């Protein structure tokens, strides 16, 4: 008996894999919910109500989905080219910081219609630059970028902490360490009145569609994939690997930075060191659940956001620690890896 790689994974299996993975993760997490002495089905029902039970909860779930689409895309783009960017968390924070600084009263003071896109670009640029450091170290010195991107996450958050307790400190925040707020005009327009849902969601979905097109229809998209799948062959075929990977890193880091920028412009209005409840790390799970497909990222991000918002509701109603959402999301990454293996291989006797 041995494993044999399938030449082609049928679409039905590609869709069944994440669904199976999520179901398996929910079953395993159900054991932990039972450990809390709570009826499992009732807990999951409460979770669904928490995420979709009212106009407010739906808008909250979609608000949570927005940064997850962007960090999910950041991971998906990078992983497709075997650039292991685990630094989306740090890139998110630098993006948020750049946006808050330039959009505040210390910043640009342009007309909102001009400034908001500039602020988003600035956030993206800050994130992209942070990823160029580990990529450069890999290309020049052969340093594994997994560890460097992980380590830089801590450096980035400390840098943010330094800035918001220093030059960018909000003097009106009663001593709380938070950055100066962006000007009121710079806040992103709402999608739904009386909610936190903002047009950032449309930006994120739009970018996912653009990326899908770029990856499947352009020369760059093909070269970026080749650089990941088989760098040796790609090099012989004349693909400038280094340059392609730099561009991949600019896009990946840029998306993560943009996630931070949009979170500031759309939701918070300022930066704190707890602006992200792990959006960067969770983006890795989103990307894997999506099979690195940009369209799939939208669905996977919605699933992950549902877990987090739903778990808050379930936690309030039933007293199960809301960390159960993190457990489900982490488990679904592991089950997804196994599901992908099952989908990609078949057993030959």
């Amino acid at each position: 008996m041995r494993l044999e790689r399938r030449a082609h994974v049928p679409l039905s299996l590609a869709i069944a894999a994440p669904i199976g993975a999520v179901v398996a993760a929910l079953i395993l997490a159900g054991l932990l919910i039972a450990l809390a002495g709570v009826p499992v089905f009732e807990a999951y029902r409460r979770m669904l109500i928490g995420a979709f039970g009212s106009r407010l909860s739906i808008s909250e779930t979609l608000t949570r989905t927005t940064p997850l689409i962007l960090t999910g895309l950041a991971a998906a783009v990078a992983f497709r080219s075997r650039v292991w960017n685990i630094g989306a968390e740090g890139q998110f924070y630098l993006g948020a910081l750049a946006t808050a600084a330039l959009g505040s009263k210390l910043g640009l003071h342009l007309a909102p219609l001009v400034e908001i896109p500039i602020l988003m670009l600035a956030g993206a640029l800050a994130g992209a630059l942070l990823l160029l450091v580990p990529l450069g170290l890999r290309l020049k010195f052969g340093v594994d970028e997994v560890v460097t991107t992980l380590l830089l996450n801590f450096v980035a958050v400390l840098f943010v902490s330094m800035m918001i307790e220093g030059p960018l400190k909000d003097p009106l925040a009663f001593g709380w360490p938070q950055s100066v707020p962006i000007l009121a005009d710079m806040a992103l327009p709402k999608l739904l009145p009386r909610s936190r849902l903002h047009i950032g969601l449309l930006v994120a979905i739009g970018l996912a569609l653009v990326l899908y097109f770029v990856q499947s229809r352009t020369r760059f998209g093909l070269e970026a994939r080749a650089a990941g799948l088989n760098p040796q062959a790609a090099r012989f075929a004349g693909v400038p690997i280094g340059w392609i990977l730099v561009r991949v890193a600019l896009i990946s880091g840029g998306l993560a930075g943009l996630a931070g920028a949009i979170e500031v412009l759309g939701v918070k209005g300022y930066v704190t060191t707890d602006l992200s409840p792990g959006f960067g790390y969770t983006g890795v799970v989103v990307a894997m659940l999506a099979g690195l497909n940009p369209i799939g990222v939208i669905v996977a991000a919605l699933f992950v956001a549902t877990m987090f918002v739903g778990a808050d509701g379930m936690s309030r109603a039933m007293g199960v620690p809301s960390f159960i959402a993190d457990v489900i999301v982490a488990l679904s990454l592991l089950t997804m890896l196994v599901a992908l293996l099952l989908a990609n291989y078949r057993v030959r006797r």
Partner: protein
Amino acid sequence: MMDALDIFATAGLWAAVLRIATPLIFGTLGALVCERAGVLNLGIEGIMTFGAMVGWLTVYHGGDLWLGLAAAALAGAAFGLLHALLTVPLGLSQHVTGLGITLFASSLSYYIFRLVVPVSGTPPTIEPFQPLRIPYLSDLPFLGEAVFAQTAPTYVAILLAFLIALALQKTPLGLAVRIVGENPHAAEAQGIDPIRVRIASVVFGSALMALGGAFLTLAAFNSFFPTMVQGRGWVCIALVVFASWRPERALLGALLFALFDAYQLRLSHVVGKAVPYQVFLMIPYLLSIAALLVMARRARVPQALMQPFRRGER
């Protein structure tokens, strides 16, 4: 006012170096054993967190401190087994699986901790390991305070570094681990089962990682709180490269690293407000990157690191 150089003359600094180094020694040795057998274990950060939680919880529920360490090691071994099963026989990506283990182990630690200890203002505490003063030696001037008045796990960690170095170099078991990490097919030709050796190495290494985490809650601090591992696991991964995959150098690297860390802590008191404290806190992470940079080209990487072994395939 103390001078920046006077800090080196205080026994307190050197005592702190050993204390800060201990979790790093355990973690680095653990990661090193996994990698010498050919498996990168990025589950380390989560495994350390889980070890910290389990060790603390065991003692909190009336267990002995040593029982706490044993429980942590066992829990670490269990996560190691999970990582090993996914990456060795199934051959899944070691990068992504390891990250998944970290996310899973740390979120599970927080969940279990919250389940047992409801939210409160101050986290509950336990009675941690007390310094074990070595008879006679701890009476030595300066050296006594600096080196011979540590908690028991610190002595264990240092001893372990030499034992693992010895085991890897001089025993058939160590040889088997090294061959499997260099060339699993050659190992198989010698009658060694690479899959078994790899699984066992990852299980053992992960138990060590968990001990490093447990040191935090059972000796360095006396309570558990989320995010307390603070990237120490990633630092260990960098230290393995710095140590060129050699246990005795891992010990040296961890001590050197801890020296910088302990020094910056005291230096920041001397310098005061002139430099933001965050700069000092960044130094350990930047140092780790620098260490990777210096050694990246020089280090002798186990040749089969991160290459899944499949029977009959080359």
